């Protein structure tokens, strides 16, 4: 196990900048999100509470050109965007976001490969940082991992005072660390200190949900219209809780024509199941009512995604709670699911 002094991290970042665009948590734009490192600001080494906009924006941008097209005399010519996007290194991302990326990898790999998303994933190195100051509404520990979990990153840093303990998790991680100077062997004391830091961070996660109970009750309360109407009553159907959610990946596809009509492009941009127009068809809209859309958001993450990919589509990062303008809290909803009638239970048993 290696470690690196905090003052040497800048050198490491500069080394990486030669090969990658290095993204770090930054509030320069006015909102805390991953942004290209300006070469000086290192405040994220001292204080790295999770960003407002999740790192998913580096793989599924808010707006992405899928292909351009031109009208030639012989007909249309398609110009796919570069299949090999610029290499990027995300520094300082939290385990909940890294895990979220692995979760949505599944849907973009499933059956048809999504080249746009996956090519960016291949060209990315994830350098995680153990989360030492979870928010009061974080609940990652209830989802089977912790704020210092290193499984979904290439390199994991843990703050042990004047330096970071450095775990090389994947070969890609080892690769980019090759030739890095200032890496010294970590002592037993360092590893013990890192363990303590990780334990205390885990203990600091105060909000809890019981996923076993939730997956038992959800199938029974899907038709409980009264419950879902009450839960959805205060929601104003904006897009914050889905756009800022690291495991939300829904997108819309739309075309644009150049003003002179000589060509144009097809784009993909973020979409959201809270919007009524999301499922609107000329004749009808299956999820016109607000309570259906709020129910869909909960069920997609805690019932449908587990059914499709075997993992809950949520990592407990708490952004949807922190950023919601009406303080809709998913943990309160999940912790207050009604029992669901026994009759419904055995009826479910019969059919599935």
């Amino acid at each position, binding site marked *: 196990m290696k470690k690196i002094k905090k003052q040497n991290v800048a050198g490491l970042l500069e080394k990486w900048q030669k090969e990658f665009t290095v993204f770090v948590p930054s509030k320069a734009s*006015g909102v805390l999100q991953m942004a290209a490192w300006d070469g000086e600001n290192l405040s994220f080494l001292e204080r790295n509470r999770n960003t*407002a906009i999740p790192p998913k924006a580096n793989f599924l941008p808010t707006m992405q050109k899928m292909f351009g097209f031109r009208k030639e005399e012989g007909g249309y010519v398609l110009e796919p965007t570069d299949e090999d996007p610029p290499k990027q290194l995300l520094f300082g991302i939290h385990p909940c976001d890294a895990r979220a990326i692995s979760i949505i990898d599944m849907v973009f790999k499933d059956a048809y490969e999504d080249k746009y998303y996956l090519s960016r994933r291949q060209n990315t190195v994830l350098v995680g940082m153990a989360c030492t100051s979870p928010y009061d509404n974080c609940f990652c520990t209830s989802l089977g991992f912790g704020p210092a979990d290193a499984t979904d990153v290439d390199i994991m840093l843990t703050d042990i005072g004047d330096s970071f303990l450095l775990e090389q998790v994947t070969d890609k991680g080892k690769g980019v660390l090759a030739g890095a100077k200032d890496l010294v062997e970590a002592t037993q004391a360092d590893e013990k200190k890192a363990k303590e830091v990780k334990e205390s961070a885990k203990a600091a996660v105060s909000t809890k949900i019981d996923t076993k109970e939730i997956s038992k009750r959800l199938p029974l309360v899907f038709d409980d219209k009264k419950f879902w109407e009450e839960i959805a009553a*205060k929601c104003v159907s904006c*897009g914050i809780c889905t756009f800022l959610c690291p495991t939300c990946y829904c997108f819309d596809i739309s075309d644009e024509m150049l003003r002179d009509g000589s060509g144009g492009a097809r784009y993909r941009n973020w979409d959201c199941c809270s919007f009524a127009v999301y499922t609107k068809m000329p004749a009808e809209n299956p999820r016109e009512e607000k309570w259906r859309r709020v129910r869909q958001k909960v069920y997609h993450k805690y019932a449908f995604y587990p059914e499709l990919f075997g993992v809950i589509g949520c990592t407990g990062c708490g952004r949807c*709670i922190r950023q919601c*303008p*009406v303080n809709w*809290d998913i943990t309160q909803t999940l912790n207050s699911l009604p029992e669901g009638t026994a009759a419904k239970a055995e009826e479910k048993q019969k059919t599935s």
Partner: protein
Amino acid sequence: MTEDLEQKLRDEVRTLLEKGKIEHVIGYGEGSLKFATTPIMISDQADVDRLVINPFIHNNLSVLLPEVSGKVAVVAKVCDARSIISLVQNKQVARENVFIIGVPCNGIVDVAKVEKLTGLDRDEIDAVTWKDDRLVVTFAGGSKEFSAPEVALDSCLDCDCSGFKEFDLVIGEITPVAANKELSRVRIKEMEAMTPAQRWEFWKNEFSRCIRCYACRQICPVCFCERCFVEETEPLWVSPLPRWQDNLIFQAVRMMHVAGRCTDCGECQRACPVNIPLGLLTGKMEDIVDELFDYRAGMDKDAAPLMAAYEPEEAEDLMR
């Protein structure tokens, strides 16, 4: 002081429900976020004790009003109550179906400003309390004090509670928190001092951050079109893609559509997850409407909406 206000509110609501004068109540309940409350809807008396009044009653509850049918009581600050009257003026809500319960703003605080001033997130702050006209913010390792104007919501700075006569019931005494018209217009004046190119550059940068979550439209009580112009594709007025040009056009047109209905309640700025200072737009729009037509939204329920009325002689100097 707030405890007896809360108790008074609960008792009043309980009697209103008992006497059947109202069927539902939209009020503030305990929030799960620190220093926040959350909108709650109550129909039976058992839940009345969930109603609270504290310095964090930020939401403008009138946005939920059109969705509730029947006789509804709404707990409202002055700017919220003006939004209700604006909805009445625009025939979205029938005045006799709404029972407006005025509550004092009770030292309401802009938590985002406190976070910025202290450099801490709200869950790192232990307590926020008023000591006469100073706000004391205590956190691990000390405390800081701020004056009211420093931590008041932008919309509170230009608060003008006088002259509003549409409360059906008032709990306690309605007084502005930190009304300071001058201070509220400082940044707007700075904007006006810039050249057009500088102003455009400022908004270009702000709107390049916008992610089109539409929280500004969805949280706005007077943005009540069934189908927003931004959702139209035939013709396409503005692209759904979050390019700064289209974000700017969307917000500019939205602001002009709500001119005369917007009461500058500050909700769009508070809801924006990427911190775009929309208050600079709503504040200026309120001034334009006031200066050109001497009109203030939501003050008089019988007044015609701004765009549904006219004077034979007005604004001719702006015409060619």
